[in-house]
């Protein structure tokens, strides 16, 4: 990870390795996800990579019946919906992710605050293989 340069490219390369990496400002200590080239708090560029534990809790969510085309292409739709949400990580930051293991038949039963752990979702084969950020109950 010594070559981690805080870009989207570097972030997704780490996701491919099943690691969730953000940044920590060496000046003020602010932890960021996504990683930042410049600290949102003190504007320092003195950053180091920061690996998240992958533990967090559900901050808010939706059960999505009509998703973007790429999700349709992965087989999702009105008869096979999925949950997307915002996860508040143990280390502070929150991030958007797919949420696995929820009862989509009864969305009103899904509890905000539910503890979650990171789940790297692999889709596609060979050249088109991609890893997406997910969390599971």
């Amino acid at each position, binding site marked *: 990870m010594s070559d981690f340069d805080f870009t989207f490219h570097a972030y997704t390369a780490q996701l491919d390795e099943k690691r969730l990496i953000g940044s920590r400002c060496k000046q003020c200590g602010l932890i960021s996800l996504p990683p930042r080239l410049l600290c949102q708090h003190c504007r320092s560029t003195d950053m180091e990579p920061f690996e998240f534990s992958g533990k967090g809790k559900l901050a808010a969510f939706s059960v999505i019946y009509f998703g973007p085309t790429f999700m349709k292409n992965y087989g999702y739709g009105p008869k096979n919906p*999925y949950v997307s949400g915002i996860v508040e990580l143990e280390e502070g930051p929150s991030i958007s992710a797919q949420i696995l293991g929820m009862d989509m038949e009864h969305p009103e039963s899904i509890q905000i605050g539910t503890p979650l752990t990171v789940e790297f979702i692999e889709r596609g084969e060979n050249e088109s293989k991609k890893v997406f950020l997910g969390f599971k109950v």
Partner: protein
Amino acid sequence: MTSQKLGRGVALVGAGMSKFGAFPGKNSRELFVDAFLEMSASVDKGLDPAAIEAVYIGNFSSELFEGQGHTAPIMTDWVGLNPVPATRVEGACASGGLALRQGILAIASGLYDMVMVGGIEKMTGLSTDGATDSLAAAADVSYEIPAGFTFPGMYAVIATAYMHEYGMTPETLLQVGYKNHEHGALNPKAQFGQRISDIMEARKASAARKGKPVPTWADEFEFLHDNTANPQIAWPLRLFDCSPVSDGAAVGLLVSEELARQFTDNPLYIIGTGQASDTALHGRPTLTSLPAARKAAQTAYDMAGVTPDDIKAVEVHDCFTIAEIVATEDLGFFKAGEGWKAVEDGLTTFGGSRPVNSSGGLKSKGHPVGASGIGQVIEIFHQLRGSAGSRQLPGSPNIGLTHNVGGTGQTCVVNIFERR
């Protein structure tokens, strides 16, 4: 910090819009001509278009929707105004509101005395999937969309956070859509200018005509709970919680305050304008409010020297039903967590103490995203000048406000108008 002030006064003296809807036979420049002609006709003492010195056009993404970029000079050309400076302004669904603000700033700076501001979007040339993907470009495509989010999905996140924090249920959301269709039924420019009961009758007639079983909904809310008639899009948001995909254009004419009465005896003075920006939804300290909307509103209120109670006509950005509830709190009409109760109590309807979106809002009127911010201004123009016809608010409103949001609040702009 002391409040911001315009360098000099600015007034709105003309406003017009195309019908909003789906128009397979018209592209954005042709809709813009419709809006321009109505704006010209609205100037009480007449307009010589040759006096217009600059044009600002709000447009989110004609590249994605029409395959056409560089739209401002084309709109300007189609209304015969070349070679005046023509500038496109982009802030997703707040593009129109930003174009208005740029026109205000240009006149306030002293550079121009007369500026035309407009907004356009032609969205129905794409399939619903195509429009969904194009709109997604207004979100963070690196860090939000890969999570599977759509705009309905992101506003649904705001809704679930709000429900969790304040105890609202999806029932209240249905009431917002119901109310906006009641209002929009009185607006001849609205895309879906029908009451829910009208839509139900049309569905029944269509089923009977096709020899299919005729649905038997007991009332509007039974229709709105019907998963076939009103399917889930992104729980807790159903189809009738979402504004439609639309085509449309809207145009306003701004002049310096000292010139205003040369054009009309009823100018509307711009007394406040505020704009703010924000990070992606997941990066904010709250999910139940749009911090940029609160900031833009405070800036506009401070400049105008008015409070929420002074606002008598208001158009808010109800791209989704939950957005209207949050907007009424962000603008200070109701305390945080009480906007949904105001809906339950009927306060935001025509007969209520705080009518919201007399035009029918984006839900019923339509949401051609780049035009919507100026479309809101058209409604305020009519409400404050007493020309809103059957949907005229009582009490001769003298101060109006528009609240226009880009994305999930990465851009917010609030403008306040006064008839003196």
